[in-house]
């Protein structure tokens, strides 16, 4: 597949497409937690690092196959999401944000001191198993399952929690359980993305999963539109490509990046695709016809 694609686009773009795919998986996971369920989580990179280190150690030290290692990383991250979700999801808004920032930092500091993970140097020498094809097949599967979930009774319950937790309880939704579920799935997906990342780059270090990475993922969700699957995909596209294009303006890169976000938030406070529904588009179209 890669060989085939390389006839049309050069390696640089192929690389960007792979990173976009990994970022889509990250954004979709966080979208489930923050966009759909409304629980502001700011430590998503922490779950990514757990998946990345676990998968890398499984292939490097234990010689396990890539598939098993990926799954192992995702399950480990999901397990952490579950364990952290239980006590923290009682907290609301700002408190939850602070606790999740703290979690992300604790995980980073842990890996800085983690012998088996190479401390500050990180891990290197992983075989680059991750290909364009693996990433995008996973993206497609995850998008389809995610769409199924959001259309089901469980998905509606998650949206209901975001909209009004007390009313959701009154409809028979065990809100604590559903929040923990969203958190666990989101962490699982971050872990999967981490494993893919580790075996694409071939090396990982704690600084790859710092607070800024969590913010970057959050930006993708917010920019695309909270709770929207196409939104998260678009957000991941734009925020992966934008920094690349802004390389031209080099040292003003962060400035442009920030300004872009501010402008978008002024003109589309709900995100690019937030609250955009096929139904509304059709209605608008019909009105114009008449």
């Amino acid at each position, binding site marked *: 597949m890669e060989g085939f694609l390389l006839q049309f686009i050069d390696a640089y773009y192929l690389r960007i497409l792979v990173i976009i795919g990994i970022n889509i998986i990250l954004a979709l996971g966080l979208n489930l937690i923050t966009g759909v369920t409304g629980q502001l989580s700011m430590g998503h990179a922490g779950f990514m690092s757990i998946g990345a280190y676990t998968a890398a150690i499984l292939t490097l030290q234990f010689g396990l196959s890539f598939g098993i290692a990926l799954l192992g990383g995702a399950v480990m991250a999901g397990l952490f999401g579950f364990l952290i979700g239980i006590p923290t999801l009682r907290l609301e808004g700002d408190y939850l944000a602070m606790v999740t920032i703290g979690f992300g930092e604790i995980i980073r500091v842990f890996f800085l001191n983690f012998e088996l993970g190479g401390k500050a140097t990180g891990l290197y020498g992983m075989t680059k198993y991750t290909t364009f094809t693996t990433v995008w097949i996973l993206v497609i599967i995850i998008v389809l399952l995610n769409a199924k979930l959001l259309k089901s009774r469980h998905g509606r319950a998650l949206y209901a929690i975001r909209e009004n937790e007390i009313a959701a309880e*009154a*409809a028979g939704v065990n809100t604590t359980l559903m929040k923990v579920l969203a958190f666990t799935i989101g962490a699982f997906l971050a872990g999967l993305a981490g494993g893919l990342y580790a075996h694409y780059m071939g090396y990982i270090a704690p600084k790859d999963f710092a607070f800024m990475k969590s913010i970057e993922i959050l930006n993708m969700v917010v920019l695309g539109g909270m709770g929207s699957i196409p939104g998260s995909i678009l957000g991941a596209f734009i925020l992966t490509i934008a920094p690349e294009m802004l390389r031209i303006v080099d040292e003003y890169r962060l400035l442009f990046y920030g300004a872009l976000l501010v402008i978008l938030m002024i003109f589309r406070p709900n995100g690019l695709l937030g609250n955009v529904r096929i139904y509304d588009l059709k209605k608008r179209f019909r009105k114009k016809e008449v």
Partner: protein
Amino acid sequence: MAVLKLEGITQEFGGLRALDSVSLEVEAGNIFGIIGPNGAGKTTLFNIITGIYTPTEGNLFFKDEMITNTSAYNIARLGVGRTFQNIRLFGKLSVLDNVKVGSYGITSSSFFSNLLGLPKAKREEKLVTEKSLELLELVGLVEVRHEYADSLAYGDQRRLEIARALALEPSLLLLDEPAAGMNSSEKLELMELINGIKEQFDLTILLVEHDMNLVMNICDLIAVLDYGKKIAEGNPVEVKSDEKVIMSYLGVEI
């Protein structure tokens, strides 16, 4: 049979006694009114019955099962539906989805059967959609089913809350000031709706309402709260002529 029984319910918020050993029994098939001045503790009573608060003292029973410490979602699943005084719709969900969420507590398809789109999940989803549309038809909102709930007019939002509560197929329905903000023709329609759903779904209804005309017209029994205490109980005629009630509450209106 008593569908709902409260025994000496007391609720304290810090130093404030919002409810002071209130006891009540609500018989099946009744429309039971709860009236009283602002801050009397009516909404607090609803919040205790639906498990949002656990009472400081006292016990409550739903169909002979003690539910004093039962969590809110489990009480809902037992068949206690409610609407809220300060409307609590899922604003950025469609009108139809609001009602569909309402049926969460009585549906059972599992997480994985939904993910995999198994026949059972599909069948249940289809049934939920049909039933939800019927309920929207009943409250006259089927035309606006695709609109966001928060875009509806006030009266429509109140009726959507009723449809959502009915989706739970409750046997006990709690309505907290359903007529608030409605004009007199809407109030008449609401009265018909309440009587209609009571018959159609075989409901017992607990009604908090400030509109005395409506309360006196549709309630079989009425309890009067004042400063957290039950000061009277009886049929509309009895309550209307009760000295204490006239002094503390009705007197203000007449």
